[in-house]
């Protein structure tokens, strides 16, 4: 209730909003003071639930895990580790030796490769299919409302349920093998298990892509298409020269969201394969590896989660800096578009 009662007091002199130019400094100062009170609690709470764990993860990642060293069998007492934990993952070092095959430490580059494989393949598939879905839904046809409702269903199903559902569909005796008339062992074969994850993820998340892209498509005025039709542009030309460039900002934001989401893929893999498949780790992702590591040592897990965090951050940075995915601006434009 405190939030609700704070709002009226928070409205800072509505008349004051009008003569903004005349007394900009004073107003901004007043707004700034209110902003501190209004946003403060959110920032404080986020600092507790995100800031604190992240900082302690970084600190932990430089500590040694106490316990028996798996490779050497000797007891390690803990204490400051320097960059040992990072070398453990990036350099595949377990103590003084190379991590033995099958140990978690040996799986870092597999998990790294898998994570990027899943990210690239699912996001490309979801973008292409999502764009197609959005273009269809942007047309006028009978039953459009029904299709738009149907598309929300995969989005609304919890990922854990999606995983179980596709696990059943992909069962060796399951309906998919029956339909394709071929006995594929989806969860033992190396590539089949990877594509089982890809297919389930694509089914679950494409609708979200389609909705974000559709929001961008709806901003393109019909007149642009009419004019190009008059000028004799073909369907393909209209798509390449009008639709694609104009929807690009919305598309970039959708792709950015999806990439960051795909890089932390966990639920589907953990439930469908547990990271297994192929010779035992065909589908392991960075997140799966972190969780597997937790019970074998927090500090090594913290180093891995810090590495994961840095990777996600770098990818986001590349998107925003070099590919021009401007989230805030694009969304502001979409809101203005929706108003008219």
């Amino acid at each position, binding site marked *: 209730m405190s*939030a609700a009662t704070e709002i009226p007091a928070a409205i800072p002199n509505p008349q004051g909003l009008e003569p903004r130019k005349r007394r900009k400094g004073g107003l901004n100062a007043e707004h700034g003071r209110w902003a501190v009170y209004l*946003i403060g609690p959110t920032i404080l709470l986020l600092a507790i639930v995100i800031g604190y764990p992240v900082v302690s993860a970084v600190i932990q990642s430089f500590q040694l895990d106490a316990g028996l060293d798996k490779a050497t069998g000797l007891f390690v007492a803990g204490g400051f580790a320097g960059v040992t934990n990072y070398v453990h993952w990036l350099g595949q070092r377990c103590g003084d030796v190379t991590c033995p095959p099958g140990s978690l430490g040996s799986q870092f580059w597999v998990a790294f490769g898998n994570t990027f494989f899943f990210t690239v393949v699912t996001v490309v598939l979801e973008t292409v299919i999502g764009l197609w879905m959005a273009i269809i839904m942007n047309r006028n046809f009978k039953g459009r409302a029904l299709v738009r409702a149907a598309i929300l269903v995969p989005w609304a199903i919890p*990922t854990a349920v999606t995983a179980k559902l596709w696990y059943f569909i992909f069962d060796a005796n399951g309906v998919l093998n029956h339909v394709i008339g071929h006995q594929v062992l989806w969860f033992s074969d190396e590539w089949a298990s990877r594509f089982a994850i890809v297919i389930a993820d694509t089914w679950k998340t494409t609708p979200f892509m389609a909705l974000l892209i559709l929001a961008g498509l709806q901003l393109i005025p019909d007149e642009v298409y009419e004019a190009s039709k008059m000028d004799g542009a073909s369907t393909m030309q209209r798509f390449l020269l009008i639709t694609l460039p104009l929807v690009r900002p919305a598309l970039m934001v959708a792709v950015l969201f999806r990439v960051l989401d795909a890089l932390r893929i966990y639920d589907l893999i953990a439930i469908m394969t547990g990271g297994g498949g192929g010779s035992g780790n065909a589908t392991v992702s960075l997140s799966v590896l972190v969780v597997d590591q937790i019970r074998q040592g927090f500090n090594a897990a913290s180093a891995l989660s810090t590495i994961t965090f840095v990777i996600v951050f770098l990818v986001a940075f590349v998107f925003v800096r070099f590919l021009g995915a401007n989230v805030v601006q694009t969304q502001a434009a979409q809101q203005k578009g929706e108003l008219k």
Partner: protein
Amino acid sequence: MRVKRHTGPRVRTAIQALVIAVWCLLPFYWMIVTSFRDVGYTFDPTPWFTHVTLDNYATAFSTALGNHLGRALLNSVFIGAVVTVIALLVGTTAAYALARLEFRGKSLIAGAILAASMFPGVALISPLFQLFTDIGWMGSYQALILPSISFVLPLTVYTLASFFREMPWDLEEAARIDGCTRVQAFRRIILPLAAPAVFTTAILAFISSWNEYLISSQLSSDATQPVTVAIASFAGSQPHQEPYTAVMAAGTIVTIPLVILVLVFQRRIVAGLTAGGVKG
């Protein structure tokens, strides 16, 4: 000729639309069909309802094999409700400030809150695991609620702020000029206008908490586990045989309320989704 030119594209659109609808609904349909199918016919590929039974729903709720779906449902509702209420109480004022006030560092804060919603949950898990072990919170409700706030609160602020930006705030001023006090203007003008936005945001916040799996699967206990964890670890009578029909029944129970909710509030939810860029 004329007729052909116009019906061709239309038919093609209709066919593609049908493909989209079928692709989205077929696995969901299959879950429901299986959930009503006798366990002896688990792998029967007949595409419509056969060997219909309610046994799977009884099995899903049965506690004989150590499954606690009913309790897990209550846990998910409780955790989701607490997380949603906290996120709305704290986040509404922040959303208001981001939408209505001009201040230095605003885009920085907006960007930081958006970045927080994209934060990889796995980066929180190992320090929280250790912290909650140390202070004896492992398996408690607060150990599940606090981490959920890390992604529900940014989502709430972001979605609400974009809704607030669209609201006709001039009306409030008009009401003040007409003699309303500030409180009256808030209660009679702003609250009715903002209520649908807050409600939609609450639904999105609740759904994202309801769907959380990673953190709950590590930090919950048997007594506090939410439905996602309960379904993922659903045990059957044979150790090496997945109890598919019962799991599909459990999945249907967990999903149907969400699907109804989403379909009823379809327009608003799509608006909220595209405004806040929620992930699924």
